[in-house]
C-alpha cells in the first residue's frame, strides 16, 4: 500500500474524545520539554516537530498572554456599556464586535440601548477591549485598521478573523513576534493548517473596475 487516508474522526481509540493527552508544561518548573501528542496518531508527529522548534517563541507568547489576561481582569470590572463605547470608539464595526463576542448583531444593538450583557458576554468584550489597548504597546498605532487588514497579501485572513475564533494568542503573536513572512505563515499554520488551500485564490483576483468598484478578474 502506498497511500493511506486517515480521518481525524476515525481514531484508533474508542469514543469521541480527542486522543491527545497533553501535559501541562506550565507545571514543570525545571523547564524540561515534554512531548505532546499520541504516538499512534501520525498527525501528532507534525505537532511534535513544531513544538521542538518553537520553544522560545512559546515562552514569549505565553508572557504576552499572561499580560493580556491581567488586562482582561482589570477591564472586566467595567460595565458592558462602557466596554462597548471603548471598543466602538476605536472604529471597529458593530458586526465585527458581534462576531468576536459570538453573539448576533441584534444582541449588540440591544446592548447599545442598555440591555444587560451576561457575564460571559462582558468577559468577551473585556478581552476585545484589552487587545485594542495592548496593541499600541507593540507599535501598532491604529489597532482597528491593523485588525482589519490581511495578515499577508492575497491571503484572506485578518487578525479580526483570528479574534472571531478566540485566538487572541495568535493576534498577540502577530503583533509582536512576526517580522518575516515565514513567521506569519507559522501563525497561519497554527490557525488553520490548510490556509493555503482555503484562504488563497491562485486563479482570480479583485481589481478596480472602470466605474471605480471592485471587479473579479482572472490572474495572469
Amino acid at each position, binding site marked *: 500500500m502506498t497511500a493511506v487516508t486517515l480521518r481525524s474522526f476515525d481514531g484508533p481509540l474508542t469514543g469521541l474524545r480527542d486522543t491527545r493527552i497533553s501535559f501541562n508544561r506550565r507545571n514543570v518548573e525545571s523547564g524540561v520539554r515534554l512531548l505532546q501528542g499520541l504516538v499512534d496518531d501520525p498527525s501528532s508527529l507534525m505537532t511534535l516537530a513544531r513544538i521542538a522548534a518553537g520553544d522560545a517563541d512559546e515562552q514569549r507568547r505565553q508572557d504576552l498572554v499572561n499580560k493580556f489576561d491581567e488586562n482582561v481582569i482589570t477591564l472586566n470590572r467595567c460595565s458592558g456599556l462602557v466596554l462597548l463605547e471603548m471598543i466602538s470608539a476605536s472604529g471597529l464595526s458593530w458586526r465585527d464586535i458581534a462576531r468576536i463576542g459570538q453573539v448576533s448583531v441584534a444582541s449588540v444593538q440591544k446592548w447599545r440601548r442598555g440591555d444587560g450583557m451576561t457575564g460571559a458576554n462582558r468577559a468577551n468584550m473585556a478581552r476585545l477591549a484589552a487587545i485594542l489597548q495592548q496593541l499600541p504597546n507593540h507599535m501598532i498605532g491604529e489597532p482597528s*485598521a491593523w485588525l482589519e487588514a490581511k495578515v499577508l497579501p492575497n491571503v484572506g485572513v485578518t487578525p479580526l478573523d483570528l479574534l472571531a475564533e478566540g485566538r487572541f494568542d495568535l493576534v498577540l503573536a502577530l503583533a509582536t513576534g512576526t517580522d518575516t513572512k515565514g513567521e506569519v505563515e507559522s501563525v497561519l499554520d497554527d490557525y488553520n493548517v490548510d490556509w493555503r488551500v482555503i484562504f488563497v485564490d491562485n486563479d482570480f483576483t479583485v481589481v478596480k473596475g472602470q466605474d471605480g468598484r471592485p471587479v473579479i478578474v482572472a490572474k495572469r
Partner: protein
Amino acid sequence: MSNQLDAPKNYSALYHSLGEECREFDLRPVFTGDVFKTPDAKLWAVVQHPCTFSNGAAGVLVAEVVEGSYPSQKFWQGNFKKMFLPEVGDLHFEIMFGQLGFKRISELDAANRIVLLSNYGVNVLMQRWIYHNARVLVATSPTIHDSTSGVFEETEMLFEAEVSCVEAGRPEGEGIKLVTKWLDEDKPNRRGALDEPQLRPALRQELSALVKTHLMTA
C-alpha cells in the same frame, strides 16, 4: 484554492439576523441575500450582486425561496441550482436559482424581511450564484469577499446613520441622504476607500462625528 464550493462549518455564521431579530434592522436598505415574505406568502431572496445597490437601482433580481431539508456537508458540494439557508429557526430553506423574479425596491420595502445574511453568507451565496450561471468557481476568501465587503460596509453605514437620524426624530431617508452625499463628495476617493479594509475604521469614526454634528446643527 479548493476546487469545491464552500461548505460552511457553522451555519450561524451565514446570518446577520433571523426572524424577529430582523425588526432591529428595518431601516437597513435592501441588500443581497435578504429574504422577504411578500403579501402572497411567498418567499423571495435578493440575488443581485451588491455593487448594483449603490447605484440606486429601482428593482432587483430575486429568486424564490422554498422549504427544504437539513443540508449535510456533501449537499453544499453539489446541488448547484440552489443556495441553502439552514437552521432558520426550526426550518431549513433553499434559494432556487431557477425560479427567478424581479421586484421593485418599494415592493420589498413594504414586505416582511425575515433573513439578513452576514458578509460571509453573502459571499457563499454569490459563489454559488456565479457557479450556477457561469460554471466558474471563485473562492469566497479572499476574492468574493474583497468584491463585496466594501458595499456591505456602505450598507452598514447607511443603516447606522439612518437609525441615528430617526431616533433623533428626523424623517426616514435623511440619514441615507447624508451618507450618500458624504461618500460622493470626495469622489472617487472616499467610496474607493470603503474597498480598503484598513481604511474603514477611520471612515466609520469620521462618519460618526459627521452624524453627531449634523444632528446638533441642522
